[in-house]
């Protein structure tokens, strides 16, 4: 892969999307030995408001650190899906939370949907790990980093008491996305 691969995590402030982007970029940069840049944009609110975190992965030097044409987009809220799907490329992939994004934005891309936040809350057991469920799903859908590297990057970011919880969240997201796109 010498081309840029562009990933955008979007939703509301406080959902942990910046961290999800950071972990994805760390997996690529530190564990997979690729080039990666992570950037973010958010409103002045600490919670709520549309928020996005972008990751560019490439084998070559990355100049422009922001997205140009997005290859893969995660939208955890309707507002984010409406605001951030305009530059998703043809043939790209959109992952949405099926409970929260009722109006799927139109476009020539593949849409994958499953109840991400509900999975975190009821199947993993804690809503707070919804970002890690989403990250696992994005790793499965993009294939831009290896599953092993991504899992290592997740575990390196998590306090010891929560290792199992996050491992479960990551794998559940990975498996659900794999099943949902089949």
């Amino acid at each position, binding site marked *: 892969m010498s081309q840029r691969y562009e990933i955008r995590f979007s939703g509301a402030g406080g959902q942990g999307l910046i961290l999800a982007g950071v972990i994805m970029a760390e997996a690529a*940069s*530190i564990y997979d030995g690729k080039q990666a*840049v992570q*950037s973010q944009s958010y409103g002045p609110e600490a919670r709520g408001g549309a928020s996005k975190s972008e990751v560019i992965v490439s084998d070559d030097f990355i100049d422009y650190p922001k997205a140009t044409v997005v290859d893969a987009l995660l939208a955890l809220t309707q507002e984010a899906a409406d605001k951030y799907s305009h530059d998703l490329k043809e043939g790209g992939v959109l992952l949405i939370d099926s409970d929260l994004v009722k109006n799927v934005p139109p476009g020539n891309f593949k849409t994958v949907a499953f109840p991400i936040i509900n999975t975190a809350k009821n199947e993993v057991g804690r809503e707070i790990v919804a970002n890690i469920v989403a990250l696992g799903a994005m790793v499965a859908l993009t294939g831009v980093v290896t599953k092993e590297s991504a899992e290592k990057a997740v575990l390196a970011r998590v306090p010891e008491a929560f290792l199992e919880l996050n491992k479960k969240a990551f794998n559940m997201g990975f498996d659900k996305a794999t099943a949902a796109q089949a």
Partner: protein
Amino acid sequence: MAKKVAFLQGNEAAAQGALYAGCTFFGGYPITPSTEVAEVMSNELPKIGGKFIQMEDEIGAMASVIGASLTGAKVLTATSGPGLSLKQELIGYACIAETPCVIVNVMRGGPSTGMPTGPSQSDVMCAKWGTHGDHAAICLTPASVQELFEETVRAFNLAEKYRMPVMVMPDEIVAHMRERIVFPEPGELEVVNRTAPSVGPAEYKPYDTSFGDVPPLAAFGSGYKFHVTGLNKGQDGFPTTKAAWVQAEEERQIRKVDANVDDIVQFEEYELADAEVAVVAFGSTSRSARFAVNEARKQGIKAGLFRIKTFWPFPDKQIAALAGKVKRIITPEMNLGMCTGEVKRCAEGKTEVVGIFRVDGEPINPGQILEKIKEVK
């Protein structure tokens, strides 16, 4: 042994660069998008016996770093636009009292509180003319996380070498983005320490120009006693209004930088050898420009990039030479023409200078620059 690598945010890299340079004091008043600099310093300084203090406001923060610097410490503060405005009175004090200090200012929208979380490049004039009166200015505008580390180290070196405040000004994008950084080993990057006086406390004068344009600075607490003021001062540091002396001293303080521009000014030239269209850019905008230059080259357009690393002193003679060589210069920047004005000044009408200005909180994207390259070629 393999070097230590990390995936770091720009602001974190600035703080790590300060620690590498030997910074032992941070005085600040946290403000987004610079807060992470203070955050890292508050965690790290106590571990090495340094001091972190959050002051009552930005003016107090600036005063605290000046005081700490006079005790011999290498000092840092970090802020953003509105905080930089407040610090200006004391930045002028640091200029006239010739006190080394480093100010990291992360550029967000302005004027006033402006757009707190959006990127901007509109503080570069404030770096030079923010505080009143004639004074020299050094301002560095890094474009990557690695460079933010290295340029913060260099800022400390220049502050200590020329005995003056030095600003590091990443835009919000460079300050908040994360990239892989390779930490230099101790000793790998040059670290300049302050010149100590070669005379004893009895003979010491804090502005003794017989030692050159940068007189040695003694540390309070080491037995040396001297007067420090914001007024024009004599060699002993006490106020003076002697006309000839004040004139000579004002000129010396400007000369510290003017006579050493080649030691201070750094820049990067990319694909300029045969270029007909040159993009002159700095900070994150230079990364968009590089992308656009590569795209233009693919389409057979001879485009190149002059990347400004040191914004002040401005790379006057390099821009003048560039203007004599290319057909057009394009100046994209996240303000309404601050760098463009300087480039026009240096170009002296030798070539047309076309700006691309954006102040809506969005970055200038490569497509915008490519479009302009095609338009003017």
